[in-house]
């Protein structure tokens, strides 16, 4: 122990003493280590994003690139007058709120059940966390097969349980399709919440509960007055991240319904991808900027709202 400490402090003094002489070298080291990453991110993330923003103001169709004039807000007008876009926007709201609520509630529940160690917990977590390692595309396929109208296992189980008489066209009827993709998304996302909340729960000092026990607080009161405040910051953050992430998660919808039937399951991002696939980069850029604006205003609003509450506490 003492040896390590000694070496540590000696090392620190040595480094501090040496710093002025090594300044140039130090700067070079920092620059060299950061350069590869920065170059990649600028070239293949920031540059194309900015170009995408510029294209939003151009007439830019992949199949006719002879002229790409600037057209002002033309693309935005095209988007805003497209009924499909408004459907997609409404769906985005439903998709985000319903998925988030389901994932949060179930994930929180799972985390509470898994909070304390029991025999086989590691193995259990390994199985339960697994969906998270799969792609949204594959999960979409999995559920597309299970929700199949004729040979789907979900229908079979519902009929066996006597809950329905006729197979339901889960993905072929507009009324059911949105519900079905949300169910699949909740199934997928519970894990993420569970992981993050377990980690947060484990960082809550045990003494807080002991003190609450001494005061005779019930489990429910402990949850409300000890657990929730203690992990509040984590919750605020992961909910925000999750909103952003669910909004940017077209993979599952893409493979489950492709936005159909009749556009009834499009969200803003699948709509955007459809524009890209149609070659209309201008319109796609406009949708992109719209989504970005939506996300930014939500984030600002949300962070303000949550900080406001904190101040009131």
């Amino acid at each position, binding site marked *: 122990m003492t040896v390590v400490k000694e070496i540590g402090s000696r090392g620190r003094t*040595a480094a501090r003493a040496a710093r002025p002489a090594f300044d140039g070298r130090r700067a070079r080291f920092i620059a060299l280590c950061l350069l590869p990453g920065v170059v990649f991110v600028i070239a293949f993330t920031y540059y194309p994003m900015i170009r995408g923003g510029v294209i939003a103001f151009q007439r830019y169709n992949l199949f006719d690139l002879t002229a790409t004039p600037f057209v002002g807000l033309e693309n935005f007008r095209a988007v805003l007058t497209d009924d499909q876009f408004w459907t997609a926007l409404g769906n985005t709201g439903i998709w985000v709120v319903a998925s988030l609520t389901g994932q949060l509630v179930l994930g929180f529940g799972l985390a509470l059940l898994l909070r304390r160690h029991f025999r086989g917990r590691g193995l259990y977590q390994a*199985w339960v966390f*697994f969906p998270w390692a799969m792609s949204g595309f594959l999960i979409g396929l999995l559920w597309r097969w299970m929700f199949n109208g004729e040979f789907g296992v979900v229908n079979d189980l519902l009929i066996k349980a006597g809950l329905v008489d006729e197979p339901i066209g889960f993905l072929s009827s507009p009324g059911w399709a949105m519900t079905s993709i949300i169910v699949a998304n909740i199934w997928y996302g519970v894990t993420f919440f569970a*992981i993050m909340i377990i980690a947060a729960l484990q960082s809550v000092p045990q003494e807080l509960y002991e003190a609450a026990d001494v005061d005779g607080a019930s489990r429910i009161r402990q949850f409300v007055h000890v657990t929730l405040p203690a992990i509040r910051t984590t919750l605020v953050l992961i909910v925000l*991240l999750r909103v952003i992430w669910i909004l940017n998660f077209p993979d599952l919808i893409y493979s489950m319904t492709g936005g159909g039937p009749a556009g009834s399951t499009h969200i803003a991002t699948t709509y*955007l991808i459809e524009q890209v696939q149609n070659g209309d980069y201008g319109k796609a850029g406009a949708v992109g900027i719209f989504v970005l604006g939506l*996300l930014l205003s939500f984030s600002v609003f949300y962070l303000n709202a949550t900080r406001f509450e904190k101040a009131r506490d």
Partner: protein
Amino acid sequence: MRHPTPLIARIAKAVVLGVWLLITVFPLYWILVTSLKPTAEIFAVPLRYLPGSATLEHYRELFSFSSFGGYLRNSLIVSLVSGAVVTAIGVLGGYVLARFHFPGRGALMLAYLVTQMIPLFIALGPLYLMMSDLGLLNQMSGLMLVYVAMLVPFSTIIMRGFYERVPVALEEAAMVDGCSRLTAMLRVVVPVMLPGIAATFIFGFVQCWNELFLAIAFIDSEETKTIPVAMNSFITQYDIDWGPMAAATVVSILPTLVLFSFARRYIVEGLTSGAVKG
């Protein structure tokens, strides 16, 4: 002293956990069973929950009548290379961000964090144009470049988190003993962090393995298709041949299943140490 949990509560807990396990595992089981059923049985009502006669015909079909073996190889190459490059970049960048304060450090962190928030789809069209200009369409190298860029922020931020848990004294001691900053980092610090490095690599690998939209946009040739692109082309508007599709799903899940079971603990640790990305 906490009160011991009453028996009834423990049973209730076990039941709930059991049901959730069933809900999680059943879809995986169902696709596996489907992949093993003869075609006639897949499309037979009433459904059979155990395959009446297991067959590997769909796997055979996948590998002998489509070039799935080739797609598998392409996916492996793309994911291994991108994962390795992105991890190396993260090892370097994360170190600097964890150990030095320099002007622009905050701005860089912010710039990296922002990329995790902004949907990449905004850049989809322009990226296609770039790939086209650079002659990188239908090239695995083009895909790898974009994948690396996509993952750099995450790998750097997560590696930074891992470095922060390693005491500075370790490399300072090595430097006092005459190591340069770089050798101290590579020979003393990096070995301590191998689990974190492995987790970063595996995370990168899995992300590339799973990526769909960039791959669909850039790759359209038989020679360079990755698995998601190939599977996407199995989907026609009204029909999916579910036997081979189920087999393809099982095959493409396997590598992530194996890797994930190795690295689960470290990935969870890394994720919860302050890095961001669902």
